[in-house]
């Protein structure tokens, strides 16, 4: 897509072009008929080296699917993903796995309960033969543990002995073991307690500085995404509806959905909550099996016009680096 030209001077690390991922799904809970569930439907964006691109949206809008399709954990239905200009496919991914990693949401499901922490972190080393000797392997594991703020004696313990925050650190250490350049962070803090979230966010920021990492940071919590991201993409029902530098997005949201999303966050400030006028969206998110025609947001949009039901709005650069897909801005 021409409109998504990379920002001047920045080196593009990852290019996502017209990515689609459809799943075959049952039509209803009791029905045996199947239909295509358009989890991600024609999404394009770039990620520059060293930046953090945030991805927000409500559950089921396709954030996880994008992250996993980029890593080729799901085969894309169509569209391409390029890493450093190289197309990711069945063959290239074998060598690219070392450069692209993922951190998961659920600190309990993402660690094998029957493996010690040392073996969990050591597994990538074994797979890619990154440690020549036993001692080297041990040293690497201890260095990784230290990097994420855990103690050497933790290596011999099992995951269930750790709290959620510590487990998330173990997951991060495992991802870092292959020395990746790019990490998909799939809601890495959503399952953690507020007091622990900040620890993990700070650690991710420090690691990015230290190791020059690039993040795709997925979350449903906008305040967290705003804090950590350089740019933010807002998704709705498999579509990217707005993409902008994070400061701009919060000061001047363009898409009605982004506005509603921003105003829906409860703020921890009683005076502000009392004075604030909220945009309350009507209704529920439609099913991605049978999305509304035209603009997918139109069924809940307070500003919907007749055209919204007819034509699908395209993502356009309305201000510098600020993209939005909405008919309100048709000239």
């Amino acid at each position: 897509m021409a409109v998504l030209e990379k920002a001047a001077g920045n080196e593009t690390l990852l290019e996502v072009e017209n990515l689609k991922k459809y799943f075959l799904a049952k039509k209803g809970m009791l029905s045996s008929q199947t239909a295509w569930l358009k989890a991600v439907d024609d999404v394009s964006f770039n990620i520059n080296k060293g930046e953090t691109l945030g991805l927000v949206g409500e559950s089921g809008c396709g954030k996880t699917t994008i992250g996993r399709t980029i890593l080729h954990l799901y085969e894309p239905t169509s569209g391409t993903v390029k890493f450093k200009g190289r197309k990711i496919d069945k063959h290239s991914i074998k060598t690219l796995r070392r450069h692209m990693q993922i951190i998961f949401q659920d600190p309990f499901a993402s660690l094998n309960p029957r493996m010690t922490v040392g073996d969990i972190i050591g597994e990538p080393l074994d797979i890619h033969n990154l440690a020549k000797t036993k001692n080297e392997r041990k040293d690497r594991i201890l260095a990784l543990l230290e990097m994420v703020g855990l103690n050497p004696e933790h290596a011999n313990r099992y995951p269930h002995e750790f709290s959620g925050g510590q487990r998330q650190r173990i997951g991060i250490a495992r991802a870092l073991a292959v020395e990746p350049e790019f990490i998909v962070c799939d809601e890495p803090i959503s399952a953690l307690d507020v007091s622990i979230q900040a620890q993990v966010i700070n650690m991710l920021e420090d690691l990015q500085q230290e190791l020059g990492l690039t993040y795709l940071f997925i979350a449903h919590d906008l305040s967290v995404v705003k804090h950590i991201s350089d740019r933010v993409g807002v998704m709705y029902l498999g579509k990217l509806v707005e993409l902008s530098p994070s400061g701009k997005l919060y000061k001047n949201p363009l898409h009605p959905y982004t506005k509603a999303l921003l105003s829906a966050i409860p703020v921890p400030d009683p005076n502000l909550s009392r004075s604030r006028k909220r945009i309350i969206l009507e209704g529920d998110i439609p099913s991605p099996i049978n999305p509304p025609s035209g603009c997918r947001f139109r069924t809940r949009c307070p500003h919907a016009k007749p055209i919204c039901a007819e034509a699908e709005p395209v993502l356009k650069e309305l201000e510098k680096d600020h993209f939005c897909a909405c008919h309100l801005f048709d000239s």
Partner: protein
Amino acid sequence: MNKTLLDIQNLKVSFFTPAGEVRAVDGISYTLNAGEVIGIVGESGSGKSVSSYAVMRLIDPPGRIKEGKIMFNGMDLTQADEKTMQSIRGNEISMIFQDPMTSLNPVFRVGNQIIEAILKHQDVSRKEARQQAIEMLRLVGIPGPEKRIDQYPHEFSGGMRQRAMIAMALSCRPKLLIADEPTTALDVTIQAQILELMKELKQKINMAIILITHDLGIISDLCDRVIVMYAGKIVEEASIDDIFYNPKHPYTSGLLNSIPKLDADENQRLVPIEGNPVDLLNPPAGCPFAPRCKHCMRICLKENPPFYRVSDTQKAACWLLYKDNPEALEELGCIKEG
């Protein structure tokens, strides 16, 4: 107006697990006035749910209410028999849960579940009950309640289910509603709808609410007063303005500092609370927060701090407050010796 509805005194609830006694709720006391909305915050496992399940007497073995009184409308619920409790549950005290799918029975029509609840506690005919149920569904903002009432829970979306749960909970006009993380499983835009609904209902129906959540934003939106829990204990209790603008306990201020704010400057670093949550099987000897507290002092490691009354609307349990004002303890009934 300011009639005390609920008065919890030194409530202790423990779970006797094979690994040892878990003091899930360890001596908490608070009062709730009729029509008041109180919020309980704290990290997961701090005893928020257990403390309110105790009010409903819904603690199953290996758990047990060890000590304390729960005075509801002048009656001690810890002493009440099961039959009395059944007439109170759903009638005078109702509860809504985090996951509406697990609390609505999937094999019965939504309407029937509400009608049953009404019939159980009110002396009305089935027809009247049905009419009331439709009214309740309308009240909680379910469109076309006449049709919806005959549908099954799976035909409702997540937000609708939570509305139906609320309708069921409110069907007998309880004096007290306990809402245990009512929006945690919902999306932000749906959460906003439910919060708006609860605000409206709060105005329409004069009922007291205990709102349990881990989200300080929701607290600030809805509550009059806040209780902050840590490791089974109340560490601070205050009006919402005090909690947000003048927190006294290091855990409360730590929580506030660790959440990113939408209006903050970019690249402002967060200030996390270091360390890990308490292992309740193995709690610290003194102040439960001591191992994670930046201000920790020698006494904190040994003795649990008593409550210090900061003002009429605020009290906190922290030795720092004593340090600043040693006289304060007398006020709380402590006697100085020597």
